[in-house]
């Protein structure tokens, strides 16, 4: 039920809708729950809505931490 996947915004269509890339296809999602989405953002999509923007630097930092644990 609360499964949500990160997808990249390809194009903002209007204040409520955007196109995201899903595999080799495109899908329309609702972006009205986000403050300022823009093309190129990765967003977390649940039930056809972007519920949050993915913070790429945070994602990278976490992976770096895991890499560090691996070499410790």
């Amino acid at each position: 039920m609360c499964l949500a996947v990160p997808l990249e915004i390809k194009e903002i269509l209007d204040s409520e809708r955007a196109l995201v890339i899903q595999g080799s296809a495109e899908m329309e999602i609702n972006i009205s729950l986000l403050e300022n989405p823009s093309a190129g953002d990765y967003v977390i999509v649940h039930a056809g809505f972007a519920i949050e923007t993915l913070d790429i630097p945070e994602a990278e930092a976490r992976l770096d931490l895991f890499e560090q644990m691996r070499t410790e």
Partner: protein
Amino acid sequence: MRFKTELSNPEIIKPILRQVEALAGKMGKDIRIMEVCGTHTVSLRKSGIHSLLPENIKLISGPGCPVCVTPTGYLDNALALVEDNRAVIATFGDMLKVPGSKGISLSRYMGTGRVRMVYSPTDLLDMAQQSEKPVVFLGIGFETTIPTIASVFLKAEQEKIANLFIYTAFKVVIPALRALLDIPDRYIDGFLLPGHVSAIIGTEAYSLLEEPGGVPGVVAGFEPADMLFAILLILRQIFKGENRVENGYPRVVKANGNPRARKIMERLLTPSSEPWRGLGIIPDGSMKLKDEFRRLDADVVFDLPQIKDYDPPGCICASVILGKKSPVDCSLFGKKCIPENPVGPCMVSSEGSCAAYLKYGD
């Protein structure tokens, strides 16, 4: 993206697991960690994390499966609307196979046009406009889903779509955590907190866990490394005797969550005290329409009877939701009760503990 594959890379997971094992060895007792969210229940088992954990680290499934915590009486009311041909029921797929108290589910009416499945609440606007009958949407879900539905119903109100209604059984997480903490003879040592509910409510919402008598709580993502690392953070806290809230999913979850989504949810809905399967009436544990939106409320418009909870004979779903019993403790599990022919809701929902345990092992 690099992290999508890396977070399930065994080479990344091994060192985290080694630290989990080392800490578990120092505990000298069983540690019970409740995964609150049904999506975690499935992800933990699908990825096999549950089977990698040391013997004394027990995962117990919590009340975070919306279908499972919805009382049977709610479904009976929805079924009555269809049976009496008073409305078309629109619902997420998860609710379709839940049997009502007479053993009949909404799926019986699929294909008749009287029950419609939706993937996104946005489908509802067109559906209602094309329907000659009233359309009643089954509003179930936690904070991840509630804002998406609220957004659509605010729009329906704005566009004056007169035949779209909602039957609310929304649930919110914080009051449920409090209810779990208040159960006498505490059996939960820490919470693996839901990732996408937290994206909406933020880590700050969990301050109750940091009060005296609280337990460690760590928000987790859904990749194997995310979940295992969150378990490690919980164990570290237990070892040090702490009860803090930590964010193990900072790429998605912020301290303040998503205020814009919460504002949309709070524009339409207000807290209410309604029954949960297993937990009974939780003060402010649900959300219902504000008085100014009563026009949209199927409960009011169709004058639905007050709902009663009811457990099918032999079904222990209520105890499973509380984490007091495991699905394997049930005499019906995997025998009389299977996903294709479920007796209770914990076997119906793909996120129900019983369905997940049967599919992926306990």
